[in-house]
């Protein structure tokens, strides 16, 4: 409506301006040849308002020319055939120009539309292929698709079409005979047909790639998880094979010998066999304990019961529990920590036992305690062969054994130590250089000495 009104107004102004111009030029130029100036009224109207308005302007121009300039002036009498000729020229101009203009305009609009579409597709491709989860992006994609299609809103649903939401009409998203999903636009809206035919298949193809990518990524993650759990299973199998079977073999051999009626055992050998049963069953028991602890830690079921402890006391108790007082030297401060005493003793005992195992026979293991205002650190230092850089973190993985090590236990001690350290708000790490021994460090938050305990 508004466009029609402005068109009419513009037409009137254009005709008036040209009419006035002819009036001004009339004294100098034969009036009949001035009629061609009305082309300047028809031309812009045809360009901007299309053929309909151009025809109106043509007729109005002819009438104005006739009324104001052609003798007899102020009548609509068309005395001469020139008048008809002028009208024909205006009309022809109107039709040709408006058609050309309209075509150019359509092309421009289409080009702009296509540019918007391809810009959107390119952007979507970048975003989708960046690997963000597709589901999270669907809302934004829908909005922008609505913009391209010239509708108010659009929603995208992946997979088979369900019942369309109320008040929407579905447009299938199909790529290479595969139904990728559905785009819902408001009912009665009129999506740009060209855009729909061009844009939707491209969008569908893109979504298909993204869906496949999502799926592949999921499968890859799953495969990786499976591979890891396979590794754990293999490690577990190996651990069970070696660490359960060795003590079992010792026990079965000893029991078999003690029960045999054909063997003649000396008292010393009987004692030795009983001792084997004792040592190996204790070893089995420890392994079962370790496995249970580890599974509890991994299930998050090892809630600590924190109490205030002097860190050096815990170290001493751990050393005593190992019966290793003569091989361990303890030095340093005596900070207070708020930890589960049993669990932290376990951490320290595992570290010290480990250090003893890898130290040359007869050499001492040093335990040093340092404290800052925030943290207390226990360092367990051995004089063993040390660890290469790449093993510093791996040795904390359950069932991990140092490379080339056949003596090691099930590979659970350090994993359990790290688990308990973390459960008590601490950190556990290894520092080493090959050939220079290994240091295991536990850092724990320090607690201020409560006022009532201060001397």
């Amino acid at each position, binding site marked *: 409506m508004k466009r029609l009104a402005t068109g009419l107004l513009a037409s009137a102004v254009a005709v008036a301006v040209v009419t006035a111009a002819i009036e001004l030029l009339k004294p100098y130029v034969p009036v009949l040849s001035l009629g061609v100036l009305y082309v300047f009224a028809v031309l812009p109207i045809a360009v901007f308002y299309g053929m309909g308005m151009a025809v109106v302007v043509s007729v109005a121009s002819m009438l104005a020319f006739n009324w104001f300039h052609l003798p007899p002036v102020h009548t609509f009498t068309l005395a001469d055939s020139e008048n008809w000729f002028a009208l024909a020229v205006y009309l022809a101009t109107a039709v040709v120009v408006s058609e050309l203009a309209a075509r150019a305009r359509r092309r421009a609009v289409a080009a702009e539309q296509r540019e918007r579409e391809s810009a959107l597709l390119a952007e979507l491709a970048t975003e989708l292929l960046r690997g963000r989860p597709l589901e999270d992006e669907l809302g934004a994609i829908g909005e922008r698709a609505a913009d391209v299609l010239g509708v108010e809103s659009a929603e995208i649903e992946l997979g088979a079409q369900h019942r369309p939401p109320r008040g929407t009409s579905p447009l299938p998203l199909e790529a290479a005979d595969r139904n990728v999903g559905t785009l819902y636009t408001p009912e009665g809206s009129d999506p740009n047909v060209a855009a729909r035919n061009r844009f939707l298949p491209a969008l569908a193809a893109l979504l298909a790639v993204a869906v496949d990518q999502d799926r592949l990524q999921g499968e890859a993650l799953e495969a990786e998880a499976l591979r890891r759990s396979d590794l754990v299973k293999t490690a577990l199998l190996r651990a069970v*094979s070696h660490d359960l079977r060795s003590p*079992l073999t010792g026990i*079965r*051999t000893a029991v*078999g*010998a003690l029960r045999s009626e054909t063997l003649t055992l000396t008292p010393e050998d*009987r004692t*030795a066999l009983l001792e084997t049963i004792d040592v190996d069953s204790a070893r089995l028991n420890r392994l079962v304990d370790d496995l249970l602890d580890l599974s509890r830690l991994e299930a998050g079921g090892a809630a600590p019961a924190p109490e205030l402890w002097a860190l050096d006391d815990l170290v001493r108790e751990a050393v005593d529990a190992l019966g290793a007082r003569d091989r361990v030297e303890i030095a340093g401060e005596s900070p207070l920590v708020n930890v589960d005493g049993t669990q932290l003793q376990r951490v320290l005992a595992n570290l010290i036992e480990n250090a003893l195992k890898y130290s040359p026979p007869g050499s001492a293991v040093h335990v040093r305690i340092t404290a800052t205002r925030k943290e207390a650190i226990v360092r367990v230092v051995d004089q063993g062969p040390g660890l290469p850089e790449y093993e510093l973190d791996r040795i904390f993985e359950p069932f991990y054994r140092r490379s080339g090590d*056949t003596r090691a236990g099930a590979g659970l001690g350090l994993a359990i130590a790290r688990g308990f350290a973390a459960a008590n708000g601490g950190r556990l790490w290894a520092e080493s250089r090959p050939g220079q021994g290994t240091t295991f460090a536990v850092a724990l938050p320090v607690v201020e000495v409560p006022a009532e305990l201060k001397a």
Partner: protein
Amino acid sequence: MSGRHVLVVDDEPQILRALGATLRGAGYSVDSAATAEEALTAAAARPPEAIILDLVLPDGNGTDVTRELRSWSDAPVIVLSAVGEERAKIAALDAGADDYVTKPFSVDELLARLRAVLRRRAASAEPIIEVGDLRIDVAEHTVAVGGERVKLSPHEFDLLRVLAQNRGKLMTHRALLREVWGPSYQVEAHYLHVYVSHLRRKLEPDPASPRYLLTEPGAGYRLVDPGV
């Protein structure tokens, strides 16, 4: 004190201790070693009549120890293996080990295997080998079951002869193929299974449940005297 000398090699001190006491109780004299190097040194210092050898050692494996031993000793070797170590076990047997037991083993089983490998040592040079009711005349190329002659093809006879000369010993597929068909002859293991089944039909009282020619799944065959 004591009779035949046995070397026990295992890196687990408790197993070493228990096996030592057991073998002494059975009348053997025992040396023990915890590493491959110790084992070879001990075997050289005091040559054992049999060796009980763990497959996994801190400084090597049982196969390498067997191979090294075989270059200067023919003392029978019994390998201690575990489930999951089948490949290593076969490798050790191929390298010249005589038999194996799987951990955890029973004392009686180990002692029986030990007796068997020690007994076997005398057998290989005999011109006539008797195993239960079987009588194999190596020189004449004839076989009799319970006094009755049995006709065997040349390959069947060779296979039986090799098994009989190693009676009680577990012979791996590869060892049998090598002995019977020669080292350069590429014969598949399933040829062997076919020949063994032929032999069983001709020699066994009940071929469906063999008593002489026993299958060691995944490893090989052994010929035993059902009466022992």
